[in-house]
């Protein structure tokens, strides 16, 4: 009894300060977003706002069409994720389970792609997108990222862990490559898929430079560009409005995480138990 009490509360005692570390900045963002500009840096006015000022939200929203930007962000991030899941599971399956000539050479090329910083291939990607006639459109932000060397690598490693007896059994039951992939491999590597999805979504949700480069019109731009309007300047950031806009930008991701939290955590637990 005593031990379980300690287990119950002792763990909380350790985890609570850690949680504060994570939640602290979020609370700070929220608090700053309802302050006046003068309060932000005035050490006499204390940590909490004297009056809650909601004006920063409409003021931030008026800087750019954030509604459109958010729709675009959803479509771009979602589009990239769906394409990536398809391409990387097919490629990873081939690398993990099929024998074909020059397999290792091709796989090394995939790995090489991970090493290239994205900035190094901006110009070539730019030319490709332009040749495809996609400039200044949503697909321009999706197409360069439909394949992922990193995702292929991650998933290939996960597929290799799956015992070959399972796929052999599937073969006996009359499964071809596609149904084996669908019925056997993908369900077993769900934790890896989810881990990859989180990385991919966060990366592309926050991407700034590439969307800025290939889009011109407000109708196809994404949220980070809207944030850039408030932050990237030589006069110093407009903190109150920037924080209000930040709340708007991060809330969809936070909301998604809260909704799917159990599933995320579950899948990581499974990964640990295996």
């Amino acid at each position, binding site marked *: 009894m005593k031990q379980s009490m300690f287990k119950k509360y002792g763990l909380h005692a350790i985890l609570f300060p850690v949680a504060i570390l994570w939640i602290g900045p979020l609370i700070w963002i929220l608090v700053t977003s309802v302050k006046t500009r*003068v309060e932000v*840096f005035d050490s006499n006015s204390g940590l909490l706002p004297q009056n809650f000022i909601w004006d920063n939200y409409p003021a931030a929203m008026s800087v750019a069409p954030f509604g459109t930007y958010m729709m675009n962000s959803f479509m771009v991030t979602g589009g990239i994720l769906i394409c990536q899941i398809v391409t990387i599971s097919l490629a990873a399956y081939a690398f993990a389970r099929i024998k074909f000539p020059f397999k290792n050479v091709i796989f090394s090329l995939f790995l090489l792609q991970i090493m290239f910083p994205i900035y190094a291939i901006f*110009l070539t990607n730019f030319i490709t997108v332009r040749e495809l006639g996609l400039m200044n459109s949503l697909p321009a932000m999706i197409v360069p990222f439909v394949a992922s060397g990193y995702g292929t690598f991650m998933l290939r490693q996960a597929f290799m862990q799956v015992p070959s007896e399972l796929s052999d059994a599937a073969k006996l039951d009359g499964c071809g490559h596609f149904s084996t992939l669908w019925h056997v491999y993908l369900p077993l590597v769900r934790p890896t898929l989810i881990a990859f999805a989180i990385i991919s979504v966060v990366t592309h949700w926050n991407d700034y430079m590439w969307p800025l480069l290939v889009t011109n019109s407000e109708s196809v731009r994404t949220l980070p560009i809207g944030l850039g309007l408030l932050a*990237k300047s030589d*006069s110093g*950031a407009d903190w109150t409005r920037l924080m209000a806009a930040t709340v708007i930008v991060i809330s969809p991701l936070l909301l998604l995480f809260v909704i799917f939290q159990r599933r995320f955590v579950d899948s990581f637990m499974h990964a640990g138990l295996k």
Partner: protein
Amino acid sequence: MKSTKTNISRRHFLQTSAGAITAAGMLGTTPLFASGTDVVKLQFMYPVGVSGDINRIVTGMINNFNSSHEKIQVEPIYAGSYDNTEQKVMTSLGVGEPPATWLPINSALQTFLGMDALADVTSLAKADDIYQDFLPGFLSICESEEKLYGLPFQCSTPVLYYNKDLFAKAGINKAPDNWTELLETAKALTIRNGSDVSQWGVTFGGGWHDWIFESFVRQNALVPWQKDKVMFDAPEAIDALEFWVKMVKEGVMPSASTWQGSANDFMAGRTAMLYHSTGSLTNLRKSSPFEVGVAFMPKNKTYGATIGGGPILMAKNQPDAHLNASWTFARWMTNTQNQTHWCKETGYIAARKSSWEGEDLKTFVNEVPAAKVALDQAAYAGAFLQVPGYHKVREYLKSALDRTLAGEIDPTSALKDATKQSNREIERLMRRRS
């Protein structure tokens, strides 16, 4: 039988629709042929140098332009920071489709000239009032070898901001006017608790401290660059850096800061004086819980300032009709009325004399006397580091300044190194160009 019928009807459909498309096409083009000209479409890529409302102000101005010019349509394209804008323009230049007009930082002039990207607008300007009405220092930021390549649009310089409350508390009633006074004032305003400094005398906005440093060199009556070399190792420059080192050694100035952080420190009262851009005036005034004073940067041999911000440049690689339209647009954005509007809304310094003579800015100066300080100091201002490869040169210089202030190296050898590295880089680029 059935299939033939479908074929016929499909052919019939194709014919009809082809006819319809031709008709629509003719309808669409007829009015244009009738008027004899086409609508010229231009792109304008611009950075946001002052946070928040610039985007709205620029698009508002461009909407006005478009509705008052039937034959020209300008598409405003926000392109991030100055660096982002340059990257976006260069990428477009790389694939041979530059925007018609864009707004870079003025240091990039030689870089774009090196790419043979800029239209020479000298004759257009001579036929106009450009050379008479623009402030000469500002016009000089778009000039190379007596030729004009653009019109100055958003100009800024560093100025000295000071916290009037802290000055009053220390019993000081005026801003320092020369380097000696700067050091003394900073000493009087520095407050320390033991070894910790709770209030610095002065802070130079980091990240752009090379820009501020050039102002100090100019205050020693030297412009430390020409279009094909830099002279950071000249005695005037070494003397300026020695003065900086002295300020750090006296403990009145932090040896490093950031652009954003230094402005925050000033607003929070952690530094009594701040060297920052005129572009920050509105933000500092509105966000500080005390009265903000603005003064000339203190002089040494002379007053001196470096111009930041940039001109509207026009692409060389475009048809004459487009170039003329680009000129019309750049000319309109920098006309008297628009420069007045721009100056009042943003804090950038209007580039036209006629704007400052107008009633609007006279009233504005009465309300915000600080704006006048920026204008008066502009008489001593010139372009900032217009050399090829200025990005790298800036990094060499900044690293020399940082290492010196951190006490790793003495001013003379640091600046000699930076000069050698910079000139090697410039020569490399010049060789590649020819």
